């Protein structure tokens, strides 16, 4: 009896510890007064947090990552929404095959995606690194966009489009007037998922970096190989708070959790 009663709270405690624990350690380490990345932190100071903003490469790579995440996600949605719509509304021949192909980047390890992009696209066609990164991130986000948007389209009855048409709307108008507003939550979810996936992406980006062109995670790894100070922890903590902020705002203004 006793053991059973304790089982659930203990499991819950462990799950929370493993999920939240690392985050707390990072946050604590970023307030360290010491010279090296360590836990428990030695002393207390804000200087590592301040330092993050003075490292120029961090600033550049942050904007590169932001550009890739926002731009890649937008392009993935612009391609993914019509694709999901077509896949769910029309009985296209080979719809399953298309779905599988679109989902491939989720299944294939990032290292392989990165290497093959480098080997078969970037090098032979002389594609610029920034463009290659952009294409790679878009391709990586697309499967998430298609998945999430398809799920929310699946919950939407298709007869409302016919109803809109009979009330005088064109087919295209019906899509914008009654389909899009009703899958808004799914699109927002896809956006957040895509953004986070792209922002935290390492393996693909690792292969696609060049002089002055790096994503933030890759830059952080490079930085740590030379300097092992708590500023990396500080940066990680700041990024985590940024993600929490985005989700919070999405929840606040869009009722995000209703759709996920």
């Amino acid at each position: 009896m006793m053991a059973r009663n304790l089982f659930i709270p203990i499991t819950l405690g462990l799950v929370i510890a493993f999920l939240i624990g690392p985050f707390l350690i990072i946050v604590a380490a970023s307030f360290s007064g010491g010279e090296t990345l360590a836990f428990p932190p030695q002393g207390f100071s804000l200087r590592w947090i301040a330092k993050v903003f003075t490292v120029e490469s961090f600033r550049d790579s942050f904007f590169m990552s932001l550009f890739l995440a926002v731009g890649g996600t937008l392009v993935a949605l612009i391609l993914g929404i019509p694709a999901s719509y077509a896949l769910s509304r029309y009985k296209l021949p080979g719809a399953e095959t298309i779905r599988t192909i679109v989902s491939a980047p989720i299944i294939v390890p990032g290292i392989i995606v990165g290497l093959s992009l480098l080997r078969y696209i970037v090098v032979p066609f002389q594609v610029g690194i920034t463009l290659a990164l952009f294409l790679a991130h878009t391709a990586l986000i697309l499967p998430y966009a298609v998945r999430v948007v398809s799920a929310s389209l699946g919950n939407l009855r298709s007869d409302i489009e016919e109803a809109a048409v009979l009330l005088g709307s064109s087919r295209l108008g019906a899509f914008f007037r009654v389909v899009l507003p009703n899958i808004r939550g799914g699109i927002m979810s896809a956006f957040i998922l895509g953004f986070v996936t792209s922002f935290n992406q390492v393996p693909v980006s690792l292969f696609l970096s060049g002089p002055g062109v790096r994503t933030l995670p890759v830059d952080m790894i490079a930085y740590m190989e030379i300097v092992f100070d708590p500023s990396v922890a500080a940066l990680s903590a700041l990024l985590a708070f940024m993600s929490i902020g985005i989700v919070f705002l999405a929840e606040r203004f869009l009722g995000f959790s209703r759709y996920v």
Partner: protein
Amino acid sequence: MSDPKFLTLENLTLAYGDTVAVKDLNLTIGKGELVAFLGPSGCGKTTTMRAIAGLLSPASGHVKLDGADITRVSANKRNVGLMFQSYALFPHLSVYENVAFGLRLKKTPAAELDRRVKAGITSVGLSDYADRKPGELSGGQQQRVALARSMVMEPKVLLLDEPLSNLDARLRLDMRSELQRVQKETGVTMIFVTHDQGEALSLADRIVVMKRGAIEQIGSPEDIYNRPTSAFVADFVGFENIFELSDGRLKTPKGPVELSGPVPIAAGLAWRPRMVTLGSGPFQGTVRGASFAGNSREYLLDTSLGPIKAEVDAALPPHELGAELAFDLPIAAAAALRTFG
């Protein structure tokens, strides 16, 4: 004034890919008529409605409305209203905005739009619910929103696909009178689909009975109820004793049977259980089943003609199971069927 050929379907054939759902259908509906499509599941009722609305383009044939051939006119330009069985309300819009949807598309001036939308919402008794979303309404209320949404457009024809089948018995009666009222007040031409003969008989000016993609019989409720022309329609409207005729004799499972009196020239004869005379007549049967139905009693008889269903006034003394009874199938009462199949 009223146009007897307001809506005509000419040699209409409708198909999904290679599957023909409706073949060579001809139908003429007058302005202001209330017509019911009656028939079993899969006979093509919804398909025909979708073709009238323009959601399905015919494989061949024509749809004409108000003097114009609209076969090739797209659905958003026909001004034909369709009330879906599932209501198909827009979940993200309030009741007010659902009803206003079509008028906004037509760029109706703001004051007129507001007046018409409010009048529409009020006429279906939902003025207190104008700001609610469809998800916050009951099934019956949602259906009335769907009705108001179609009606504010002042459609030339209003099509209703099983408007009553999702409602409970009480709401069904409410909605029935609602539809009748709307039709009387606005004079809109209305076609509704139903499985339920009672609904068709009580609401419609004319009933179209369909069977496997074709029209089986068209007629007034009295015609359909009293004078079915085929075994299929007779069965559908409750004639439970149906016999094929050959050489003036009834074909029964136990061989041909001679009737007393002159037999009409027909492919078959049919009697409602009510039309069977119990207690006297040339035939004999054994009571195999009996059930009480309030005003009447129904008996299932095992006879030399095969099983016969008879219905008599409940005030008469009941018959025991196993009782031997004389009965008659009066020729004068029978419906003469032109086709048997």
